[in-house]
């Protein structure tokens, strides 16, 4: 028991582990944020440069009203759902990896 504990703890507390941990989560967060920001910051640009297109009617709504007032919400839910799935999977993978390392470092008989 005692022989493997310090080894895995060492790995856990290593610079490499932290860097990998943060980088993976941050990469996922930034990818999701980028998709969100494209839509959020792109919509005013579309309104600005393509006003005719955006004021076209869809079932009574103008296109831009429909996008912002109704469809934006499900779009954001979708991003949130993808993020949570990936992020929790990532955490589970990290836990499994650490535990696998623990059992690998178990002294062989």
């Amino acid at each position, binding site marked *: 028991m005692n022989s493997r504990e310090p080894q895995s*703890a060492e790995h*856990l*507390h290593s*610079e490499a582990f*932290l860097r990998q*941990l*943060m980088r993976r*989560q*941050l990469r996922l*967060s930034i990818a*999701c*944020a980028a998709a*969100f920001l494209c839509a*959020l*910051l792109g919509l*005013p640009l579309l*309104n*600005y440069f393509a*006003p005719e297109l*955006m*004021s076209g*009617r869809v*079932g*009574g*709504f*103008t296109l*831009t*009203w429909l996008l*912002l*007032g*109704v469809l*934006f*919400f*499900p779009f*954001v*839910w979708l*991003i*949130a*759902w993808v*993020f*949570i799935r990936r*992020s*929790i999977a990532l*955490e*589970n993978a*990290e*836990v499994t990896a*650490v535990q696998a390392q623990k059992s690998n470092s178990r002294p062989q008989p």
Partner: protein
Amino acid sequence: MLAAVDPSIVVLSAITVLATIFMGFWASRKSKSAADFFVAGRGVSVGWNASAISGEYLSAASFMGVAGMVMSSGYDALWYPVCYACGYLFLLLFIAGPLRRFGAYTIPDFAEGRYDSPLFRKIAVIFVLFIGIFYTMPQMKGAGTTLAYIFEGLPYWVGVVLVGAVITFNVALGGMKGITMVQAFQYWLKMFAISVPVFVLVLVYGSYGKQLQVQGESGAEKVVAALDADPELARRIQPAVGGGRRVQLGATPGGALNTSAQFLLSSYDALVPREITPWRQTFTSPTSETTMMVMPVPFMIYQSATGRRTFWDTTLASLPAFPIDMRYTTNTPDAEIVSRLEKALLQNHITLVAGPKNSTIALSTADAERLIAAPNGSVLRAPLPAKAAADATWLNPFGPLTSKAAKAAKIEGEAARPYALLYTYSLIIALVCGTAGLPHILVRFYTNPDGAAAKRTTMWVMILIGIFYVFPPVFGVLGRNLMPDLYTGLTGVKGTDAVVLKLPTILKARYGVLGSVLSGIACAGAFAAFMSTFSGLLVSMTGALAHDVYGRILYPKSTATERMQMFKWCAMVVGGVAVLFGCFVEKLEINFMVGQAFAIAAASYFPLLFMSVWWRGMTMMGAAVGMLTGGICSLIAVALTNASSLATDPGAMGRLFAGFKPLNAFWANHPLLRILCEQPAIWCVPLAILLMVVISKLTRAAVPADIRMKMLVLHAPEQLGLKQDYIKEHEGQLH
């Protein structure tokens, strides 16, 4: 003075207030200690927790303000509900999980733990108070507006003082702690109260899409199309020039005017007071000796001053001339004259519909209903007063809200669009980043069992509030079509901020008490909205004042009982200040004020949280300087804008803020600066982050020694048990 109080509205509102207070006391008796509140809450499921966060988050701004602002400003106001909901995505992506793992209950707790600095904690506490005060002002406006609506004639400030006092005493006596169950109940109440009236109104008056369809030229064209589809009706519609409806006037008390006098009902026009005045003089009865005046209302209102044409259903001519009670004095308010006329039209089954090309069509109500049911879906629409934004600017982006500063500088059309775009972006940044920095919201994330649950909760919050936020804009659109007289007033019951409460009453004409009940439900939701948010803010602010400012800064040696005693006094002080500020803001839109509170949060707390979680090089100095500079800059900027717009008020507020009047002339010459002051997030957030980076680099030596461990606690999954290591390590340091 308090005439015409609707019993169903009063009863439903009273039930909400009493139920909330009762539940608060009942639940807080069950969970006595602060530890109970936080730790027992850890067992709370994701669903309950998400409802509770949503319940605390949806304030008067969401419930009343968004609808009012969509009604007054149109498309641009949609950014508010969308960003209120989407701000949680930023919280989810960057902050929710790590912060939950760190195990600090509030932002000041986090500030202290992350930088091992009690000093920084004190600095962070100050912003709880700043943001809190700015956020309570719109809640107070919501309270004042709602009470002035329920009890007609009650002055705005009485409502503010009354509601403020009730909630303050409630908080001071220990009710209304952030109890999960109470907050969750509040969410579902608000959801019910906003959605049910919308469903009923949409069923009666046509869908969201149909309501939007009638906006703009194409909307009026649709009325023509509907008339085309009904040739029999179209044949009957004729211009009412020279031969319109005859309206018989009632007698004046002194018998000044002969009851047989008849007037022609000519072109319909906007119900604008300034157009009424000249007619008062023209039509003073020659035989009247006193101040009593005879007001031929139909003429007054339906004069064709601006070239609006009226079309008249000729079958209406076969109705007997209908009498209108014409006993007015010079002091009779215009609103009452208008409402009497509307009542007379209603009693005689006449409905006015906005027609194509600045025209009005007067139809029998039965025909009007056939128009609604027309296959291509026209909707009834009352003519807009002159104060309302025109269809094209209302419906399309870069309308009155975002191009206001440019318009004041006489920049119109194409040239104003870049300014409007800048305003839009700054608004988006404030709202999306500000959500993460609201002092009363983050606390709730610690009732999740772990970081993964915190993330799941955030997603459910986004779904719950996202569904909610679809409804208020529908109210705004319906209000524009069905109750445009709200445009004529900016305050109290007359302003667009009251649309959610007032709109359901139009159902009274057709379905009697149903309209009152729905309006009562809406009022109940409004009470839930400003009560829950105001209580949550009051608890956060009072806690900060009593425990941090008093307990840690002023008298560190105070005992627990002294602090509990102080909590009560602090609640009174904070509540009093909130009420005082609330009395000043009657003229400001609810939603606008909330946007400003978000801007302050976005420039102070958001950079602090975001950078502290993801950049290990941050030092206390960098964090403090960045947060203070960003926060104070945006605080000053928004305060200046508010003071200058209050200075334009003709009443008492204008005199009070008269010193800021020259600022308006300055804004008119510098529209760009005005936008940057009204919506400061676009420069304040980057400024705060930049300062954090630069100062942290300069004070590199001060990075906490155990930063790697702190980062691990923030980012590693709980299953690895690093938190326990961290606590052990810290205990080691302490002993």
